[in-house]
C-alpha cells in the first residue's frame, strides 16, 4: 500500500500580512486604554461573547472579554498555572478553561503581561447568548468583585432563521433595561443617538468581515486560519469603534489584492478544509502542520460567530435579532446546513472538528454535524480532543498521527493514483 506523499515536508513559513502591524498597534492601544480607564473615568465592563458590546461603547466604556484574555494567557503559556490556581479554589478542571484561567487571574492577581491583570469591572454584563455557563461564571465574578451584574436573558431559538417576534421583543426590552441599569451604575446619561452611531460602526465591521470571509472561497485561498483567528481581536473587542472599521478595510483590501493576484497562503494547495470550531490557543502552530501538508482551512464558523449585521434605524430590535439568531444556539441540522452551503461554495474536501474538552456547548453536536456532512455530501471528518486554553492532557503525537492518516485518506480520494 503506497499512499504517503513522496516529497519531503518543508517547514511552513506563511507570508506575513501587512495588516498584522496595524493589529499590533490596535492591541497596544486597547490595553493602554484599559489600564487607564479608571483615571479617564471610563467604565470597565466585563462582558461575555454574544452579549451586545454595542451598549458598552454607547456609554464610552471599555469592554473587557475574559475569554479573549484567557486566550492571550494561553498563547503566552501561562494558562496552565492560572487554571490550576482556579482549581485550587474548588473549581473543577472540567469547567470552561476560559473561566478557570480567569479565576486564576483574579485570585492570584496575575496578568498576561507580568502585571496584576485587568482592572476590576465597574459592571458585569452577561447573557446566555452563547452558552448557559456564561451567566454562572459571571455570578462567580460578581461574588468576587461585588459590582453590579446585569444578565440579559436570551430565550432559546431552535431555528435561528425564524426568530419569533415575542422572543425578539423580550430580548429587546431587556437590552433597554440593561441600558438603564448601566446609566444608573455609571451615572452617565444613556444616549440613543450614540447607540445608533455605535451600531452603525459595528455593522460596518460585520459587513467587512463577511467580505473577507467570502474571499476565502478563492482558489487558492488567500489567508491562513491563524491569521483569521488572530485578526478576530478587533471584531470581538473593538466592534462599534471606527478603529475596527479602519482595520478591516485595510485587511479586506489586502486579502482582495491577494485574490486578484491569485496568491494563496499555502504554496501548493492540495486540500481545502473546514475548521470547527474553537482555536487551540496553546498550539496555534498545529494549523501550520496542515499547511505544511498542502491543506488549507478555507472556512470556519468561529470567526463568523462574531459577525452579525445590524440596523442603526432600529438599534434595539436589530441587536435582539442579531444576538438571538446566533447559529450556534440552533440545532445540529442548522449548523450542518451552514456548513453544507459553505462546503459547496468554498470547494471543501473535509472538515476538522476540534473536540474542545472543556466545552459541552460547542462539542455535543459535533458528531451529528459530522454525520450529516458525511451522509449528505460525502465530506469526511476528522475529530480530535484538545482543550482550547489549557495544554494539560493534550497528546500532540496522537493528534498529528490522526491528521496524517486523515490527509492520506483525502489524498487517495482526491488524487487517486492511476
Amino acid at each position, binding site marked *: 500500500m503506497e499512499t504517503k506523499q513522496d516529497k519531503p515536508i518543508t517547514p511552513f513559513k506563511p507570508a506575513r500580512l501587512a495588516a498584522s502591524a496595524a493589529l499590533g498597534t490596535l492591541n497596544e492601544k486597547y490595553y493602554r486604554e484599559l489600564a487607564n480607564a479608571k483615571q479617564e473615568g471610563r467604565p470597565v465592563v466585563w462582558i461575555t461573547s454574544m452579549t451586545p458590546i454595542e451598549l458598552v461603547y454607547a456609554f464610552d466604556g471599555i469592554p473587557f472579554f475574559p475569554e479573549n484574555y484567557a486566550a492571550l494567557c494561553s498563547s503566552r503559556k501561562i494558562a496552565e498555572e492560572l487554571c490550576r490556581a482556579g482549581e485550587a479554589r474548588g*473549581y473543577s478542571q472540567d469547567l470552561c478553561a476560559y473561566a478557570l484561567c480567569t479565576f486564576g487571574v483574579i485570585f492570584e492577581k496575575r496578568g498576561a503581561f507580568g502585571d496584576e491583570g485587568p482592572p476590576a469591572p465597574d459592571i458585569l454584563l452577561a447573557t446566555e447568548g452563547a452558552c448557559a455557563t456564561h451567566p454562572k461564571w459571571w455570578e462567580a465574578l460578581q461574588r468576587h468583585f461585588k459590582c453590579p451584574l446585569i*444578565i440579559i436573558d436570551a430565550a*432559546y431559538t431552535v431555528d435561528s432563521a425564524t426568530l419569533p417576534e*415575542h422572543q425578539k421583543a*423580550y430580548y429587546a426590552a431587556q437590552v433597554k433595561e440593561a441600558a438603564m441599569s448601566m446609566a444608573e451604575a455609571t451615572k452617565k446619561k444613556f444616549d440613543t443617538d450614540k447607540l445608533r452611531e455605535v451600531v452603525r460602526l459595528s455593522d460596518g465591521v460585520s459587513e467587512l468581515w463577511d467580505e473577507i470571509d467570502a474571499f476565502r472561497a478563492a482558489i487558492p485561498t488567500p489567508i491562513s486560519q491563524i491569521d483569521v483567528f488572530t485578526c478576530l481581536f478587533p471584531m470581538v473587542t473593538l466592534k462599534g469603534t471606527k478603529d475596527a472599521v479602519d482595520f478591516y478595510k485595510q485587511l479586506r483590501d489586502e486579502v482582495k489584492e491577494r485574490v486578484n493576484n491569485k496568491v494563496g497562503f499555502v504554496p501548493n494547495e492540495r486540500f481545502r478544509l473546514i475548521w470547527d470550531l474553537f482555536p487551540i490557543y496553546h498550539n496555534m502552530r498545529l494549523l501550520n502542520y496542515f499547511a505544511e501538508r498542502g491543506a488549507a482551512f478555507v472556512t470556519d464558523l468561529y470567526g463568523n460567530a462574531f459577525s452579525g449585521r445590524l440596523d442603526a434605524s432600529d438599534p434595539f430590535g436589530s441587536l435582539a435579532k442579531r444576538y438571538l439568531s446566533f447559529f450556534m444556539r440552533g*440545532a445540529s441540522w442548522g449548523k450542518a446546513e451552514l456548513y453544507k452551503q459553505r462546503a459547496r461554495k468554498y470547494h471543501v474536501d473535509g472538515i476538522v472538528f476540534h473536540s474542545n474538552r472543556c466545552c459541552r456547548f460547542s462539542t455535543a453536536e459535533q*458528531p*451529528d454535524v459530522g454525520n450529516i456532512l458525511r451522509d449528505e455530501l460525502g465530506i469526511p471528518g476528522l475529530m480530535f480532543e484538545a482543550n482550547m486554553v489549557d495544554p494539560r492532557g493534550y497528546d500532540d503525537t496522537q493528534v498529528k498521527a490522526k491528521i496524517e492518516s486523515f490527509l492520506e485518506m483525502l489524498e487517495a480520494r482526491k488524487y487517486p493514483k492511476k
Partner: protein
Amino acid sequence: MMVNEFYEAYRNRHKLAEGWKREGKKVFGYFCNYTPEELIYAAGIIPVRIRGSSENIELADAHLPTFCCSYMRSALDQALKGQYNYLDGAVFPKSCDMTRALYSIWKRDVKLPYYYFLPVPGKSTDAAVDYFIEELHLFKEALEKYTNKKISEQSLKQAIKLYNENRALAHELYNLGLRDNPPLSGSEAFAVLRAGLIMPKEEHNAMLRKLLAALSSVKGSPDGKVRLMIAGNTFETIELLQAVEESGGDVVVDDIDIGSRYYSAMVDENAEPLRALAERYLRKVLCPCKHPAEPRLYHMLELAKEYRVKGVILLTQKYCDTHLYDRPWLESSLKANGVPVLVVEHSDTGWAGGKFKTMAQAFIEMLE
C-alpha cells in the same frame, strides 16, 4: 413492605409504560424539572421523566462526547437501545446546554413521532413570567394540534389540582423526616418520591396516601444515625443513600432536582392557569441553570436548620457545568454558616461505591 412497590414501579418503568400503551394511552417523555407537566397531562398524555441508568454506555458515544454528564449520555444510550421506543413524543425544556443540545441529537437519532422544545427564561422577573406565558400558550397550542383536541380550562385546572395534591402528599412525606426518628430511611423516602417521576400522578397519589396512612402510627426507633441533607443534582444510584445509612448516617431531606426542587412550590389554583404555571415554574427553588443563585443557598440553609441536619452531602454530576460553577461558593457559604459539607463528584455509570462509602464514613465519623 410497602416501599417495595415504589422500588418495583421505578425498576419496571419501561414495562409499566408499555402497558399503558397497550391500553391505548399516549406517553410523552420529558427532561428536567422545568417542563410544566400539567399541560401534557391536561392534553390526555401521560408525562414520564426520562431517566438514565447505571448500565454501561454502548451506543451513545457515537453521538455524544464522553466528557458530557453521565445522565444525558445514559438516557441517550437507553433510547438508542430502543428502551424508550414506547414514547409518543419527547419534550425538552431550555435549562442547561446539554438539554439544548440533546434535543437536536434525540430528534435526529432517536426516531420518536413527536418532539417539542420549550424555551424557558433564565430569570424570574415579571417580564420573564410574561414572556414564559407566551411560550406556554404556544406549547399548549402545539399539544392541541398534536392530539387534535382543545385543552379545556377545566381539564387544565384539574391537572393542576392533581399535581398540587401530589406535591402536598410529598410534603407530608418530607414532614416525616422532621421527626427525631423518621419512620422511613432516606433511601426509602427517595425511592417513594422517585417513583412519582415515572407514573401517572393519580396512581402515585393513591400509593402515597396508603403509605402515609400506614406510617402515621409507626414510630421510628432511635438508631443514633447522623442526620444529613443531600444537595446537588440528579443521580440514579440509590445505593449512594444506602451507603450513607450503612455508615451511620441518614439523609432526612434533600435539595436535588428530582427531590424537593421538583416537589416543592404549589401552583396557584385561583389564578389564570397559564400565569399560575409560569409563576410556579419560574419562582420555585431555582436550579443552578436559572438566576439568581442566592435564593437556593438561603433555602438550603433553612432546610438544614428546619431538619436539624449535622452536615450536607454536596453531590455534583461530573461534567455538569452549572452545578460545578456554584459548588465552591455553596461549600464555603454552608461552612461559613456552621454546616459541614462533604463534596462528592458523581457519575452514575461506573459508580465507585466503595470510594464513596469510605468518604461518607469519614464524614459521618467526623460529625458524630
